[in-house]
């Protein structure tokens, strides 16, 4: 028996049988989320307008996000112990907890809400407003990702977690907002602390003390999680989680190889669905997402063979920090201006040049910390900027849109320095663009159009006049 949401779910890659099997869960979760028949027309047109649904891989990816949403919303009533981690995160601890018990659900709920209530249903605003009314008011440059998390909990859409894993190694806001959740709902917090105390220019070097400290903090958080959740972390959890995420990484590397083609075969809007899923889900979402990627890789190989893509051939190529998480129109704006985006800084964490981790460490925490510090992810500001520098070589770029998140302090530290640094080091034109990557109410596509279009004209003119890109 069909229902009002069947069409949308099929558009998002669900098979008929899947819908039938999931129907009670879908309806229960939609009820909690306030999704009603009247939302379907808008959601259908929003998805078609913003995503390349001619690709099965994209449809399945959207479906993977929806599956993660359903699991998230129902996790409490289905008897799961819930762990929320802050984004961006070192995913290893979450993966290990997931791999150790089927009764534990580990996720970044704010990212799930952004990609589903934002990118699929276009209904994120009331959730953000609820976050603003419950401790994170507007006008103070507070994180809109956290507004979504607090808003989701306060409005009863997503459950209160049993444990918060705080990403205390990156932003101050996130851990402090975990304190807010702890104060309001009396939940325990496991802080994974670290200090981004690199001196400018230090990357790719880092002190072993940083590995010991961050790694030790991860190990302590895992011990606390065992106590709070009443589980035992499986001895092989680290190896298994590594093995399970291998498929995702391999597929991502294949996709990035395809993105070197001219024209680029797919919009960065869809790549954002991938990059974000890998940093948000440790359960069904990422498993289904990996399958979707396999399909997508095959589809894009066909496009590359056929020489087709989403921009004109020889369109100037630019790199950006990350696609928009809740409103794809912001990301599309760049491509609509005639620029191809083969890479983001976030994707370059995986697909960029590899810095070999230094030293051997025994514990899972130290292994994770060592990898993350070598990969630049949580190293410091100049490490982030160097990812752009490398990306410009790997993807033969013609320019860089070095946008920075105004309400994310660790990201905003790059606001001015990255433009100067990249222009000097690469000779490429760089547009420093202030953005809110999770909330487009103030930073809409239209508010940035003039800047992006002007920049696109500049880059096109340079390319027409024979300026050589880096090789």
């Amino acid at each position: 028996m069909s229902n009002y949401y069947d069409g949308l779910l099929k558009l998002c890659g669900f098979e008929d049988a899947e819908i039938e099997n999931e129907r009670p869960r879908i309806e229960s979760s939609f009820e909690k989320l306030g999704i009603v028949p009247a939302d379907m027309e808008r959601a259908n047109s929003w998805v078609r307008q913003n995503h390349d649904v001619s690709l099965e891989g994209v449809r399945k990816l959207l479906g993977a996000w929806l599956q993660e949403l359903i699991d998230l919303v129902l996790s409490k009533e289905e008897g799961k112990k819930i762990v929320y981690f802050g984004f961006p995160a070192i995913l290893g601890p979450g993966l290990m907890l997931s791999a150790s018990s089927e009764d534990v659900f580990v996720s970044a709920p704010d990212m799930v809400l952004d990609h589903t209530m934002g990118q699929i249903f276009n209904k994120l605003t009331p959730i953000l407003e609820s976050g603003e009314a419950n401790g994170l008011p507007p006008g103070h440059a507070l994180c809109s990702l956290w507004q979504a998390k607090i808003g989701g909990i306060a409005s009863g859409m997503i459950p209160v977690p049993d444990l918060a894993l705080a990403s205390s190694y990156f932003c101050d806001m996130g851990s402090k907002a975990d304190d807010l959740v702890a104060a309001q709902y009396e939940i325990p917090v496991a802080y994974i602390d670290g200090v981004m105390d690199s001196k400018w220019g230090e990357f790719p070097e880092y002190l072993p003390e940083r590995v010991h400290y961050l790694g030790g903090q991860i190990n302590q958080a895992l011990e606390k999680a065992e106590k709070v959740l009443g589980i035992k972390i499986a001895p092989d959890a680290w190896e298994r989680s590594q093995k399970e995420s291998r498929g995702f990484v391999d597929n991502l590397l294949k996709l990035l190889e395809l993105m070197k083609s001219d024209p680029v075969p797919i919009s960065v809007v869809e790549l954002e669905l991938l990059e974000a899923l890998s940093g948000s889900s440790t359960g069904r979402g990422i498993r289904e997402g990996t399958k979707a990627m396999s399909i997508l890789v095959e589809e894009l190989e066909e496009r590359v063979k056929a020489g087709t893509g989403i921009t004109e051939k020889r369109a100037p190529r630019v790199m950006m920090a990350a696609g928009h998480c809740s409103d794809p129109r912001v990301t599309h704006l760049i491509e609509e201006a005639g620029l191809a985006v083969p890479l983001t800084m976030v994707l370059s964490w995986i697909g960029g040049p590899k810095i070999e981790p230094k030293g051997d460490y025994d514990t899972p925490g130290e292994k994770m910390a060592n990898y993350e510090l070598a990969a630049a992810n949580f190293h410091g500001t100049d490490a982030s900027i160097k990812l752009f520098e490398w990306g410009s070589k790997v993807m033969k770029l013609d320019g860089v849109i070095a946008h920075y998140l105004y309400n994310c302090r660790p990201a905003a530290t790059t606001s001015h320095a990255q433009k100067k640094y990249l222009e000097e080091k690469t000779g490429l034109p760089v547009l420093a663009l202030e953005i809110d990557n999770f909330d487009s109410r103030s930073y809409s596509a239209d508010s940035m159009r003039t800047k992006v279009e002007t920049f696109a004209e500049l880059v096109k003119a340079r390319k027409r006049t024979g300026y050589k890109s880096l090789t």
Partner: protein
Amino acid sequence: MKALDKLEKHLKERLSELSKEKEKGHKIIGYAAGGYLPEELVLACGAIPLCFIQAGNNSILRRSGAYICRWFDPFWRSQIGFITSGKDPYYNIVDLIVVPITDNHVRAFSNTVGYYTPGKELFVFGVPHVKDKLALDYYLQGINRLKKTLENFTGVEMTDSRLQESIGLCNRERELFREISIMRKSGNHMVNSKDFVALNHGSFLADKEFMIDILESYIQEVQDSSMLPKDGPRILLTGSTLARGDSKVLDIIEDCGGIIVMEEFAEGIRPYWGRVRVEGDLMSNLAESYFMDRICPGWFRPGTERLDFLVNLVKEYHIKGLVWYQLIYRESYKVESYFFPDMLRKETGMNMLTLESEYDAMETGPMKTRIETYIETMRR
């Protein structure tokens, strides 16, 4: 107060005195505010510590706009403005800048020094945000690296006896600040908050031994004075930063008849409650005192230690009103300002007033209205 007059005169002459010290070969070590640099280490190698504590003027923020976006704490944007403009002579005179990195606002400053002023010698070390054994070890490793850097930089070996001597000096300074602060528990209002803040700010720049004399003289003057009971609500002023030059909120509270009897700030007020032990491993003792024993700032997680401390201060100092003075975009304090009022009300029955600043003169009017109203409600 004669002691304060003497301090003011000393500070007026301080720059020329420092120039002479430089000529004699003494190194001047500038450091970022926050209270995590043990001055003992600088003093023990014969160098002179100077804390960058000036801010409060909105015009320097405009200068920082060429280097960082506006979404950072105005105190740290002020430091960026000063370091890049050379408008604070203290920044120009230092030989080495040390930045204990606490949160991302401080990191923005450290990046600016590293990238935009490569001619300035810079040393950074991290301050963890949690208190446990691992964090203590990490902090200790940081100050040990600093010790080596200072020894190399000055060419002076930091022997235990030198370090013991400098710890003794700094302990004496902390003890004197503590003594002055504790005097305010009683109804003797001779210790004016503005004086206390001026002494604190002066201590970041003044010669250490001179400063100790000043504090001793100040205490003597207070003890020799007659009691001056005042009729006004006793106020606890708290926040992230109380910079030298940021006196607006102090002035307004005083003008409105409030009496500030306690200031709790992470930056701008020296942590004076602790004492560093002089027996055993001195570096470990410094780490223990500066990191573990100190009441943590708002960017520690969880921040409950500081919030509990505030509640205790309210009780111990017979506080009638708490003014939470935060600088805009310092997110840790902003988030805490949402859930702390409930905690405060539950523990003390008191409401608090939250104020926010970007060092803008335009804030004065609305700020005055809010403070007047708050004090008025306390008087009823």
